[in-house]
């Protein structure tokens, strides 16, 4: 096994990311760029009601329009395909690509029109006549949770997908022993990642080759498996082209229902089928909204601000179907105490169905809302004991000499130095000056506040929340792979086995292989295998690729180097561990004998007679890498090792707003960030800045709201407010590196950085600004008019 180098040649160096060249010149290759001859286009007929029984669907007028090939309804589809997978063991919560008998949310697909062009398909979609009988609907999670509530899936018997209470440690004892207690409720509004590129798929069935070719804007583990299963075709007939560029995702690009539908139509009509969501389809029925969550928190703490125990009830509104939404309550269990020494936790995780659109995974998989709840608790405790909000965190941090640190819910944190990162941010921000600046703004009539958030980014994702929440699922394998080939001309090609949605996997892989082989990474070619030629991968979820693909690439490069050394050793008459490798040259320790890269490559490819006994010709190695903490099933009381690595971030933000206009303006934003060994600084910086922008969106702007008729009133980007560059401040990033002892180079993940703490920090700052008025805001997003209304209401009750 190759040892990690102690100083780096390419890793951590600010080298240009390989992917950027094609993106900044507009030469990305996205699913919408792929239009084979004879392609037919799909448009969807959306339901107008949040809940209804379908009485009839009249397709005749639509079919009569010239250019229309077919109109598919839910009935037809359900007869031909399997329902889509649920994460939990909830077989009666059936889900197909289109509504079958019942409509469960506004916008849900009730029919699909297939036509020569998308425009004709849209014309015909208007002609599909839908007769329905509207029924009662339910939008509120608390209401859905009540035992007598109307069940969105009658056959399931209730709206409850998940309701489990975990108790880790002597919670009641800690509560009775502690000097003080406080409770509060906070709410995380339904937002998401909303990529510029909507979801799209092109599916093309070739019956003569038994192949369903799929090009899709996808970020999804086991995508090909699910398509094959649903379409009842062998998995080895599905070929997902993983070299398609994906225009943004952060979790949401799952598209199973779209792909099952397109695949079915393609097999039926024998034509390539293109289904590219338009913005309306994406917003209302892309099934890509994120967590929608109410937290009730109780904290037991001492007079000095030390937190002993926490009770958290998290009630999540999953929307109309289950999917993987309930798991977003499971992942945060791996960092349920944040960076703090909280000794025991009670956690009730509830997921309910309602008549809102279905959820999908969103950056952090539930961690950002949880961090918002935990950080609010820290602020509340600070206020209660009269301690500075930085101080309260310092007092509760896990000390740097206690790693690996086992938290009550069963995860070992790998490493961290929270005090030092905090020190660095305090220095960068000039804390005393920042406080003075805030106070000057206040003196000027503004409401001004400083927000603080400290939190963890669990990374290197495994799936331990699956067996934890669904005992029927005993998966413990969660691997990623890399294959390296050196061709007869000596050039190096690495293959990765998943799609990329902007994470820079090419740069990551080339950098690490270059580091091990001491070859300029720009000379290493990185390609995406298609799903038929792929080694196993679990795709870029859970901030895992630096750890997992990085680990596989490192190990594969090590295996390659070992083989080359064995071949060289044979020529030297030495043993392989006597061979010294440096920058493409193999030599004996004394330097008397040496062979160049091409000499050894040529032996491998052409001179079998010079190969060591038993050595296979050619140069090809693979590594299939399991999560470095292995994989174990949960204990009976619900403890499990969740993700292996834990990056840390500390946010500090100053903002202010006019008490009447109430539009927060961010004056200063500093983040301290520790993701262990950085592979490429540009990528980490980009992730962090993007994550903070995303977090500002969740904190101040973005929400999929529904009116009391169950209609979604944020169906376009005019109503769903994504922050633009105007709303995002300059961000100062302060780095620190605490390597992970579990990973090949000490790296941790950073794909969710920034996003996991920014909402908490912004909320903290707004609440600090409101503190002089004696009020708080307890729901995200904090929107301008609502904030002003809150301030005005407080002024009225005071006067």
């Amino acid at each position, binding site marked *: 096994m190759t040892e990690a180098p102690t100083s780096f040649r390419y890793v951590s160096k600010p080298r240009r990311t390989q992917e950027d060249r094609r993106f900044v010149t507009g030469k990305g290759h996205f699913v919408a760029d792929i239009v084979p001859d004879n392609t037919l286009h799909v448009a969807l007929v959306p339901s107008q009601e949040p809940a209804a029984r379908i009485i009839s669907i009249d397709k005749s007028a639509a079919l009569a329009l010239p250019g229309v090939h077919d109109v598919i309804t839910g009935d037809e589809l359900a007869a031909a395909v399997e329902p889509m997978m649920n994460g939990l063991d909830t077989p009666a919560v059936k889900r197909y690509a289109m509504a079958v008998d019942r409509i469960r949310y506004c916008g849900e697909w009730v029919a699909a029109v297939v036509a020569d062009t998308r425009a004709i398909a849209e014309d015909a979609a208007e002609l599909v006549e839908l007769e329905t009988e509207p029924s009662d609907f339910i939008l509120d999670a608390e209401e859905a949770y009540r035992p007598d509530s109307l069940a969105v899936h009658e056959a399931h018997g209730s709206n409850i997908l998940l309701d489990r209470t975990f108790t880790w440690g002597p919670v009641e004892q800690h509560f009775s022993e502690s000097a003080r207690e406080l409770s509060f409720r906070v709410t995380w509004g339904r937002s998401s990642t909303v990529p510029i590129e909507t979801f799209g798929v092109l599916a093309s069935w070739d019956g003569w080759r038994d192949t369903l070719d799929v090009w899709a804007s996808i970020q999804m583990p086991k995508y090909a498996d699910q398509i094959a299963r649903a379409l009842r075709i062998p998995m080895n007939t599905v070929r997902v082209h993983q070299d398609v560029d994906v225009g943004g995702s952060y979790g949401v690009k799952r598209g199973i229902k779209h792909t099952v539908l397109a695949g079915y139509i393609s097999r039926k009509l024998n034509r390539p089928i293109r289904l590219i969501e338009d913005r309306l389809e994406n917003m209302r029925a892309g099934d890509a909204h994120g967590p929608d969550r109410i937290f009730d928190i109780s904290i037991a703490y001492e007079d000095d601000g030390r937190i002993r125990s926490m009770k958290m009830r998290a009630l999540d509104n999953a929307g109309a179907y289950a999917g993987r939404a309930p798991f977003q309550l499971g992942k945060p269990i791996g960092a349920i105490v944040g960076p703090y020494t909280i000794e025991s936790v009670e956690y009730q995780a509830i997921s309910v169905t309602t008549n809102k659109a279905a959820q999908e995974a969103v950056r952090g998989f539930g961690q950002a809302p949880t961090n918002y709840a935990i950080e609010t608790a820290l602020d509340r405790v600070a206020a209660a004991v009269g301690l500075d909000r930085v101080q309260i965190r310092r007092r509760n941090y896990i000390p740097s000499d206690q790693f690996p640190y086992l938290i009550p819910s069963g995860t070992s944190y790998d490493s961290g130095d929270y005090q030092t990162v905090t020190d660095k941010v305090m220095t960068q921000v000039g804390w005393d000056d920042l406080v003075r600046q805030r106070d000057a703004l206040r003196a000027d009539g503004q409401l001004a506040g400083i927000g603080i958030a400290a939190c963890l980014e669990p990374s290197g994702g495994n799936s331990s929340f699956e067996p934890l929440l669904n005992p029927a699922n005993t998966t413990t394998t969660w691997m990623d792979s890399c294959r390296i080939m050196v061709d007869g001309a000596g050039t190096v090609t690495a293959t990765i086995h998943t799609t990329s949605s902007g994470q820079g996997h090419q740069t990551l892989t080339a950098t690490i292989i270059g580091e091990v082989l001491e070859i300029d990474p720009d000379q290493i070619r990185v390609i995406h295998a298609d799903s038929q030629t792929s080694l196993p991968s679990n795709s870029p979820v859970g901030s895992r690729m630096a750890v997992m693909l990085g680990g596989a690439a490192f190990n594969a490069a090590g295996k390659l180097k070992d083989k080359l050394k064995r071949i060289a050793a044979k020529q030297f008459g030495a043993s392989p561990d006597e061979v010294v490798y440096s920058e493409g040259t193999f030599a004996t320790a004394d330097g008397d004998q040496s062979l160049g890269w091409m000499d050894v490559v040529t032996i491998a490819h052409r001179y079998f007679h010079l190969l060591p006994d038993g050595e296979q010709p050619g140069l090809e190695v693979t590594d299939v890498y399991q999560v470095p903490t292995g994989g174990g099933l949960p204990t009976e009381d619900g403890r499990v090792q969740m993700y292996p690595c834990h990056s840390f971030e500390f946010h500090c933000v100053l903002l202010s707003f006019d008490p009447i206009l109430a*539009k927060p303006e961010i004056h200063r934003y500093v983040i301290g960030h520790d993701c262990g060994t950085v592979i490429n600084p540009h990528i980490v910086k980009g992730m962090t800045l993007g994550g903070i922008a995303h977090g500002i969106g969740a904190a101040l702007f973005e929400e999929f709201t529904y009116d009391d008729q169950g209609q979604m009133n944020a169906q376009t980007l005019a109503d769903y407010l994504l922050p633009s560059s105007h709303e995002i401040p300059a961000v100062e990033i302060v780095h620190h590196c605490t390597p992970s002892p579990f990973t090949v180079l000490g790296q941790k993940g950073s794909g969710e950085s920034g996003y996991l703490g920014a909402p908490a920090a912004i909320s903290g700052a707004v609440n600090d600004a409101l503190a002089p008025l004696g009020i708080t805001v307890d729901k995200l997003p904090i929107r301008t008019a609502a904030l002003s209304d809150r301030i005005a209401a407080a002024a009225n009750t005071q006067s």
Partner: protein
Amino acid sequence: MKPVPFEYERPHSLKAACQLLADDEDAVIIAGGQTLIPMLAMRLARPSRLVDISRIDGLSGIEEQTDNITVGCMTRHAEVERSPVIASHVPLLSAAMPWVGHAPIRVRGTIGGSIANADPSAEVPLVLVTLDGTITLSNATGSRTIPARSFFSGPMMTEIQPGECLTAADFPVWQHSRTGIGFREIAKRHGDFAMVAASAQVSVDATGKCIACAIGIGGVTDTPLALPELASSLVGTAFTDQSVHDAAKAATDNLSAMSDPQTSPEYRKRAATKLIADALMAARNDALETSEGVTT
């Protein structure tokens, strides 16, 4: 997001354009397309035909008259924004332009489109109403000019009759030597339509006393609204923060403000009061600093 099928015409004379509109009541003008194209894409607008007026001579340009500036309907927002003539004669319009959407939208969006579209939050109509300007409408047989203050009849509704094209808007030029302007707006995000906008123009005499005043608000009621009574109540007074605030409060108290899912009517009124006062004070301070006046 594909429009329903429509026909497209690009006439070369105003008369031909108006005739096309008169002949087909489902035909609509397309100018900059910045509002119409998204409406078409979402199938909220379903015209039978688009009449593109971008190639008609004489519809674009900024012209100085004795007491006002005429802006042709096809004049792009960006041209107005950068125009030195507008900057020196109708500085309130210059100040408003950067608030109209984003720069790329202003490159295509037109003054006529902005006014004809009659969005209650739009800045150009607000300035025109504030300054008590006029609007010229033409049909195949002639034209008429009406005050902007009676042009807007509701949200996205105007006095334009079938077969008419809005050809120009006239912005009055104030001759007082000490004239200043104030424009204030609050939007959800930069570039969004205003939740509330306030525009003010104030002239003062050598002692600082107000001798002329105009104030209007956008985004609050269902049309852009001039507040002439508020304005005239301030003429002859020396502005103080308190008196201006009280007057603004009185002017907004009885308004029936619009609401949307994110914005309560109360917010609109509170913000309007503040922005009216801020805009007036800014205009007055600007006037005090102006020694040359707005005309040259």
